[in-house]
Structure formats: C-alpha cells, structure tokens
C-alpha cells in the first residue's frame, strides 16, 4: 500500500470520525429534547398534563367553596354519671369538606361503665345530608373508673344540602347500655 493511499484513507477516516462525533453529540442533545417533547405529547393527547401542578388534586372539586354551614355540637347524658362535652362548641365548614372534631367523656364513677351514644340532628331534614365517616357512636364505649377519653368524629356535609339550611346541630346522648353492669356479688 503506498503512502498516498494511506494519507488519503487517514483523511477520510478523520472526516468519518468527525461526522459520527456530531451524531453522538446530537443524540446526547436529543435525550434532553425528549423532556419537552414528552411534556408536549402528554399535553396534546391529554394523556397526563404534566404542566398542571399537583394542587389540582388538593383542590378538591367536590367541595362547595361558595358557602359555609355552621355546625353546632351538643352533648347530653341520660341517667349516667359521665361528663360529656365537645372540645369545640361549633365550627363553620364548607359542604363537601371532610372535617374532624373531638368530644371528651369522663366516667366520674369508681366502677367501669359501658355506654352508647345516639346522635340526632336539628333540623331533622339535615340528617340525610350529614355523613359521618368515623364516630364513637358506632361502638359501645367502656370506661374504667375515673377514665377520661377523647373521641373523634369525622364527617362531611353533602353539598346537596338545601340552600335554606345554614346551621346544623349535631346532638349526642349517651345511655348506659343495659345489662352490662357487673354486679359485685
């Protein structure tokens, strides 16, 4: 192989090298170009709008922010030596908003007592719109002598609540559960 051929090959080799290097660099750039392309494709096809910040989901669309309802909490005991009271006496909520409140009960006797709370609503028509997700009234509560317990209620007011209702009273009454008292002797 003579030297002229060799230098010619070397020159065309270098040219191929340069071209291929450019391709490699372009492909490195292409990797990054995939980022906006991906966002665009998702946006156009509506597959997933990566531009909308995630607070779309924290903005709960089921909450009616246009109005507020006052909830008053009431607590009674019936022939039972317990003190029973809500921690907060009332609260303003939006319909559709999930809310938690706390009641406190104390057994003032020196023996264990089992009680059950029964809820009622005012006005009566509000009852079907008041959805309790978690409530101490779902179970019987047994308190030891002098025991204090804080019990949560989690609820949602249905946005379908008639416009005329702007205050709801949630009232609980605790009864002693019959037949649970252990007679000593």
């Amino acid at each position: 192989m003579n030297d002229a051929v060799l230098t010619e090959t070397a020159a065309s080799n270098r040219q191929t090298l340069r071209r291929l290097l450019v391709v490699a660099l372009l492909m490195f750039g292409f990797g990054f170009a995939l980022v906006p392309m991906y966002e665009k494709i998702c946006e156009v096809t509506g597959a997933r709008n990566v531009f909308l910040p995630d607070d779309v989901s924290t903005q709960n669309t089921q909450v009616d922010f246009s109005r507020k309802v006052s909830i008053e909490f009431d607590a009674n005991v019936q022939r039972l030596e317990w003190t029973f009271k809500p921690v907060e006496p009332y609260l303003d909520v939006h319909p559709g908003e999930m809310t938690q409140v706390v009641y406190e009960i104390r057994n003032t006797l020196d023996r264990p007592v089992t009680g059950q709370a029964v809820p009622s609503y005012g006005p009566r028509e509000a009852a079907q719109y008041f959805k309790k997700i978690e409530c101490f009234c779902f179970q019987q509560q047994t308190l030891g002598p002098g025991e204090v317990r804080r019990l949560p209620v989690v609820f949602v007011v249905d946005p379908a609540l008639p416009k005329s209702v702007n205050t709801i009273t949630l009232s609980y009454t605790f009864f002693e559960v019959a037949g649970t008292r252990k007679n000593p002797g």
Partner: protein
Amino acid sequence: MSAVIDNHGHAHDDHHADHGHPPGLMRWVSTTNHKDIGSMYLWFSFIMFLMGGVMALTIRAELWQPGMQIVQPEFFNQMTTYHGLIMVFGAIMPAFVGFANWQIPMMIGAPDMAFPRMNNWSFWLLPVAAILLVSSLAVGGAGVGWTMYAPLTTQAGPGMDLLIFAVHILGMSSIMGSINIVTTILNMRAPGMTLMKMPMFVWTWLITAYLLIAVMPVLAGAVTMTLTDRHFGTSFFNAAGGGDPVLYQHIFWFFGHPEVYIIAIPAFGVVSQVIPAFSRKPLFGYASMVYATSSIAILSFMVWAHHMYTTGMPVAGQLYFMYATMLIAVPTGVKVFNWVATMWRGSLTFETPMLFALGFLFLFTLGGFTGLVLAMTPVDVPLHDTYYVVAHFHYVMVAGALFSALSGVYFWLPKWTGNMYDETLGKWHFWLSMVFFNITFFVQHFLGLAGMPRRIPDYNLQFTAFNQISSIGAFGFGLTQLLFLYVVLKCIRSGEKAPDKPWDGADTLEWTHLPTPAPYHTFENPPTVK
C-alpha cells in the same frame, strides 16, 4: 513473526514502530494492535462474566428457600442490580467488541482498526468503569435495579453517584469503539470488498455500531438528569419539583430496547458465520439477512414502551406499541428461516461451534416467542415484573447472546491461538451448559405464570420447589463455565497445532488468505476480493 510480515511487503517502517513491543505489562497498556486489544476485551469480558456469575449465585443461594437466609434485602437488591449491569455492560457487550476487534480487520482485509490509539483508549476505559462500579458497593451500593428507575435513584445513597459515573465511562468507551468500527468498515475495506460482499458478521457490527452511537448518548443523558436531580436542584424526575418519574422510563427504554438488539445483533452475526461453515453451504438469503437486520435495528427505536404497559399509558399508546413490537417478529422470523434454510441439505457436522450455534438457534427462538407473549398488552399486565420476564430475557441474552459468543470463541480460537481446542471437552461444555441453562431458566416461566415477582429476596412457600430446581441449575451452569476456562487455557498452552483452515466450509478472508495463527500484522497490503 517478522518473516510473515515480510511476505506481505514490508516497505514502510514508520507505521508500525510497535513491532518490538515493550516488555511485560506495558505491552498491553500501550498496545494499539487490534488483535491485542481484541484479546484484552475478551479476557476482560470473561473476568466480568465470572464476577457477575458470583453475584447471580448469591441471588440463587438466597432464593434456595423462602425466608431470609444469607443476605440482607438491601444487599440482595444490590446483587440483582450489579449482576445485571455487569453482565450487560461488562460481559456481553465487551465480548462482542472483542470479536469485532479481532475479526473485522481480518474479514475485510484491513491492516488494523481506523484509529488504533483511540481503540486503546476505548478498552482501557473499561477497567476504570468496572473499578468504579464495584467500588460503589463499598460506599453502600445502590440496589436500584439495572434499569436505574427514578425516583429510587434520585433518593439513593452515594453509591448511586459512582454508578452514574461508571455508566458515563462505559458509554464513552462504547461510543469511541463504535466510531472506530463504523469508520473501519466504511473506509478500510480491501479493493473489491463491496458492502454487499462483506461477511454477515461485519454487517451486523456496522448496524450495531450505528445503534450504539445513536442510543448510548441518550442513556448518558438520562443518568446525567438523575445526577442533576440528585445534586443540582433540577426536577426532571422529581415530582415535588414538577418533574415526572415516568419520563425517566421513557428515556431509559428509548435507549434500552435498542440496547437489547445491540446485544443480539452481533450474536446473529457470529451465528451467520458459523452455521454456513458447518453446513458447507453459503448463507441462505444473504441480502434478505442484511435487510432483515437493518429493519430490526430501525424498528427497535419504535417499540420502547412495551416495557411500560403498566405505567398508565392511554389505550391508543398500548395498542400502537403492542402491534409495533409484534412487527419485529417478522424480520426476526426471516433470519431464523434463513439459518434453518442454510442447513437444509447441507453436509452438516456438529463440532462445538456448531453445537453452540444450534443451541442459540433453538433457545433464542424460544426467547423470541416468550417476547411475543409479553408483547401482548393484556397478557403482559399480570406478567410484568414477574419471573416470566426474567426467563424471557435470559433465553435471549444467555442462550442467545452468550451461546453465540461461546460458539464464536470455539470457531476462531484456532485462528487466534494457532492451536485446536479439545473437541471432547468442548462438547462436554456445550451439553452441560445446555442442560443446566434449561434447568435454571425453564422453570422460571412457571414461577412467573404463578405470580412470583422478580427482584424480591423472599417468596411464598408454594414457589419453593421450582426455585430449588432453578438454583441447582444455576450452580451447575456456573461451574460448567470453569470448564470453559480450562478448555481455553489448555488450547493456548498445549493444544494440537491447527491447520490454516480447520473448518471445511469457512470461506472468509481470515481462513482463506491468512496463516494460522494469524500473524501480529495482517493485510498490510490489502488482498483483492473478486
């Protein structure tokens, strides 16, 4: 040695001052000879293969029975991660680059690779990357899976940074190697060696090198984004900053699916040399082979999201990726047909290279079929990330690519070393590999169908029996590969002298125009190809 070179017209001395190579280690550090570099690639690959193998056996030992036995879950996950990375980037890819270095110049009648010095660099980057990779285990490792999905990687410990740098260096090495290969093939062919006269192995490497140049930079980009998310406050994948972890999967698999063909296509090339040689017939449908391989390469860019059916893609996307993926089976089918047609009415003999090529043909096709099963979206949803996928890709990567590489080693070993290997031991190696491979991986199909997830160190009691079968197979397979090491060493040390052309049906330039062993410098004066 110089006597041989003189035969080829030794007119210019300035071009190979490397004749009297420096003594000892420096010869290997400074060599620019394609054969030296090819050998180094192959030995490096074998060392990595053993290392990745030990990790695999750690996994299989832990999975011998349910419950945690010998390793911690974090370490188990690191083992699956490093096993995958080391086998893909350290064992399989460098093995085929080793073949490319040895064979491409000899098969096209070129004196060496186009850029010998860059070739030296491409190789020596590999040990550096390997050391980085393994040392990342020492700083806590990163059990993130070989696919390195965000957001796990953006939250992993410092081992992840070393892993990312290792991937960068591996990518650089591959890109430099590929540029060298493309340039050599395009510019340095002997007169008369038109593109459509090139041996199939050379064609497959031309296509593979283009694939590598196109997708390795994309992988480099993906891990760079991970790195900047980790340390420089960007939010490519970080959802808290407006990024999207699913984006990582898209970028990764844009690299990842072509990558599986980067592994498979050179394997096709080796088999396309071996099967005609032992059938004593030319390759059936040479032109259709070239076109089929090219179309596989092009299609491989359009199917990446078949790895992502469960990420919540729109149905239209699922349908598109499903049909596009199944389309790849068509050119693959053309290739399998051509290999079988090459054997049709050939005068077949079954020496070790042919046995491994046939093992490849059977088991790779089986792996292709399970690929088709996984390509069907509704079927993939329950199978995704189960042992069924593990079985699928080990059929295509171990029984496919690795068997093809072993076939190539047995095929060219006489030309490289001048000695014959021990045929009896070679056959033992094949049959033991074949049996243990299937014991290990066939049962994993059933495990996957029954719902055993991958990358989990513990499992439900009912999976025990199949896992124990698989573990027994794995240890058998691992030990068998030590036999391979013995066969190769025995061949180099004390093998019988090999003739110039030990295989009747071999017809490429290294067999027809060169003595055995191939001299240090070959084709300084190009042969003329009719």
